[in-house]
């Protein structure tokens, strides 16, 4: 009987060691996203929206040094505007081929706790947008939530001509 109990005590310590080690768990963390993803559209001869590419795209953000985001990027059908965690308003200048337009974004950011492994991230909600109408014909919100799902947020439509 005593020997049995000694065996049990040894087994108990063994399982205890395994059990404590099994508490360690790795978690996969989806990367945060602070980019407002914008697709470029034009209007075809039938008056329908079609995805288009622009020959040259340059973008910078007003009010920040070294704010160049895109520098003469060729054949682009999409661009992204990086949102700041400490701001709620952005002024973005776009050089679309030879035309220059300005885009304004109002948004709010809110922290989201994910886990002790993945930390806290910010998500964003686009509240309002506006733009000049040089090359840009229209700018629309498709999805106002900017988060890890990385869905298309804005639709930018060029003039038909």
């Amino acid at each position, binding site marked *: 009987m005593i020997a049995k109990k000694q065996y049990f005590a040894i087994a*108990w310590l063994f399982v*205890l060691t395994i*059990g404590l080690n099994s508490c360690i768990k790795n978690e996969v963390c989806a990367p945060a996203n*602070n980019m407002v993803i914008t697709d470029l559209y034009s209007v075809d001869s039938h008056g329908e929206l079609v995805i288009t590419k622009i020959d040259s795209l340059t973008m910078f953000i007003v009010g920040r040094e070294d704010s160049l*985001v895109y520098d003469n990027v060729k054949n682009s059908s999409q661009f992204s505007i990086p949102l700041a965690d400490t701001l709620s308003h952005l002024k973005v200048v776009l050089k679309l081929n030879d035309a220059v337009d300005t885009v304004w974004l109002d948004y709010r950011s809110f*922290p989201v*706790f994910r886990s002790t492994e993945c930390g*806290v991230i910010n998500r964003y909600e686009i509240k309002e947008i506006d733009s000049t109408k040089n090359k840009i014909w229209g700018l629309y919100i498709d999805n106002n939530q900017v988060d890890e799902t990385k869905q298309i947020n804005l639709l930018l439509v060029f003039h038909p001509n």
Partner: protein
Amino acid sequence: MRLNRSIYYLFFILISFYTTEVWSQVSDSSRYQPAVDEPLHIEKVRKEKQHIDHDIRIGLDISTLILGAITPIRTGVDLSVEYNIKPKLFVVAEGGYNYYKRDNDRIIYISKGSYIRLGIDYNVRNSVEPNDHDIYYIGFRYGYSQFTQEVPYYLLLNGFWGSTDGSMAEEDAYAHWVELLTGFKVEVLKNFYLGMGVRFKWFLHRSKKNIEPVQFVPGYAKNYSSMVINFNYTLYYNIPLNYKKKKIAVYEKK
């Protein structure tokens, strides 16, 4: 002659009367009571110790202590008290205080608070020897925890604008849950037991606030899913209380 005989009879009567009177007084003074209608025995109540298998067992969850010693992530104390109301049925009260802190370069998270668990254990094992007190049990618990959690620091990574930091204020929270459990308790030394068990836990309800999902509920565990499985390793001490005073009627002859 006839006179002498009369005197003799008178004397005899007087003596007899006197003797009866005196004897009667003597009997009264000694409180003699004839055993005609009296019971010969009287009833007397006496207390006597009798062995009944009652146990009060105090437990200390050593896995919390070991984890606290190995790593500062989780510290605290988890205690339990159990008492068998029937030979195989135990009422159990468990309680404690847990402090949980995760600290890395991106976040500091703290959860702390106390909890209580109430329930029963049923011993499904039949003892093979008179002093065999080993237990294989199945049980049920209801748990309640009141705790706080906070994020005093977090880091937001932003490739374009640069990283910033922030904090989330401390908030009160609570949780209810139920547990099904099973395990062993083996007496390795006299009155000392080692226990090992597994617990299946489900939330009944819990508060949901800004810091969500809650990472650690004292008394419950880390919270990664709707059901969690915990192992517990407990050291028990059985308070020697295996007797009970019982009134027994004993008839004694005086």
